[in-house]
């Protein structure tokens, strides 16, 4: 079992420069994540949750405050941090096996070890028999499983998930949420999931971090003490869901955003079916 990472974020702020004007994206984020913990981050569009994830994976630079992984400041990307994006981002000219093996290009392993690791991780996401398929031959859910295998095969200490199921249909999404939970239990690594979907956040996480926008701040951290497997229809589950949703309605700008999205006037990524289920 790989070593799981501790992540410490201390007074993190980030701003972009837009036409010479500073535009704050994240303000004073402080968050501590224990090894092996599952954290969900929810918030409306523009609350900076994806930026936070990109800072942790190392794709974004330039910030104030500290982002520490096992006490070390994060500089650039690293094979210790895997990420799954909303789009699968598989290489269309490579087969499933080759796509997963791509992660091990720079791994310190023998060819034989690499072959085993790739085979094991394709099995972990349940895609035996599809090793030689090309991405265009896979369904959206299968492609996203390959992306998960690719992110896990290098045995990262932390897996970051940026709305990984946002573009999938409701059935596939529910199924993959179950699978992700199983993988988290099996691999024992730290996971951080960014999502629009409050139900998904509660179903999977030990803690749900609710963020509010402009600039992105943490509004509340809701611990989820429900035992697994969780039942979305159970009274305790629904109570927590209502509690998290109340945090949203209590914040005027985000609630306005949600209403706009429901009316079909929201930013493009909000138009995804199911992405705003929590608001209904």
């Amino acid at each position, binding site marked *: 079992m790989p070593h799981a990472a501790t992540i410490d974020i201390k007074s993190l702020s980030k701003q972009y420069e837009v036409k010479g004007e500073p535009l704050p994206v994240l303000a004073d984020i402080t968050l501590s994540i224990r090894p092996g913990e599952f954290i969900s981050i929810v918030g409306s569009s523009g609350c900076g949750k994806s930026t936070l994830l990109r800072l942790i994976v190392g794709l974004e630079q330039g910030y104030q405050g500290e982002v520490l992984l096992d006490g070390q400041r994060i500089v650039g990307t690293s094979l210790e941090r*895997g990420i799954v994006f909303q789009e699968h*981002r598989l*290489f269309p*000219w490579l087969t499933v096996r080759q796509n997963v093996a*791509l992660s091990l290009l*720079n791994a310190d392993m023998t060819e034989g070890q690499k072959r085993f690791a790739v085979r094991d991780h394709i099995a972990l996401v349940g895609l035996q028999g599809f090793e030689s398929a090309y991405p*265009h031959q896979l369904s959206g859910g299968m492609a996203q499983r390959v992306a998960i295998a690719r992110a896990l095969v290098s045995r990262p200490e932390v897996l970051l998930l940026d709305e990984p199921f946002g573009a999938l249909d409701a059935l596939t999404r529910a199924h993959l949420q179950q699978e992700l939970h199983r993988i988290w239990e099996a691999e024992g690594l730290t996971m951080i999931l960014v999502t629009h979907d409050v139900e998904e956040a509660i179903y999977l996480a030990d803690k749900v971090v609710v963020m509010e926008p402009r600039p992105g701040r943490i509004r509340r951290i809701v611990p989820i003490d429900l035992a697994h497997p969780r039942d979305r229809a159970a009274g305790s589950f629904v109570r927590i869901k209502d509690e998290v949703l109340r945090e949203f309605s209590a914040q005027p700008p985000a609630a306005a955003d949600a209403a706009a999205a429901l009316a079909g006037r929201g930013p493009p990524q909000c138009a995804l079916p199911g992405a705003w289920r929590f608001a209904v």
Partner: protein
Amino acid sequence: MRRFNPFVAVPKPLRGWVLPLVLLALWWAAFRFGWSSSPVLVSIGSVWHRAVEQTLSGELWTGLSASLRRDLIGFAIGASAGLAVGAALGLSRLFENLVGPSFHTLKQISLFAWIPLLSVWFGLGDAAKIAFLSLAAFFPVVLNTFEGIRSVPGELMEVARVLRFNRRQWLRKVVLPSAAPSIFAGIHLGLIYAWLATLGAEYLLVSGKGIGNTMIDGREHFWMDLVIFGVIVVGLVGFALNWIATQIERRLLAWRGRSVAAY
């Protein structure tokens, strides 16, 4: 009741033959029923005789092989230079800043405007012709290689960063395969342009042997059957080159499947 549709009656793979066969029939009829007495109109039979005579005497091969040899040499030079310049433009901002503006100015010059300059520099022989058709192949290859490299999806670039690819891995695993369809499109265009230019060069720099020169001979002597035979051969060669390029492309880019993947 469905009305009989004559076009549906022809099986799909054979539909491409309908137009040429109709034209052939019209040609035959025009001659047979004496629709025109113009000496421009020759019979299918005389073109056929000319074809047999040209083939058996070896004159077809002399001309065609001279043309094809120039075509392939010029294409090879133009396409290789095009790949190198296109890759340099795509990969290096410095090179793009230095050479880009000049290149984009040069590509605006009509290919035929180069002929006087080339004939002064290289004479009227093979060297000038090869230089001319290398230029014809050069421009589309540069443009498509450059475009292909510059349009590698940013999403895949990020994946390469997350997976800690070094520059060599980034080139081999991301840039090259991603740019490949565009690069092949450029090479394919270059191949077609080079063949068109091969004929152009023979008309504009009249000297030596070549299938174009055979046709010019035909025109001088008013042997219409020879001219028509030449046109058919040139068309068939172009068709064959295009077919070969398409087959190679299809094989090498099989991963694209039928759908056009986003990335």
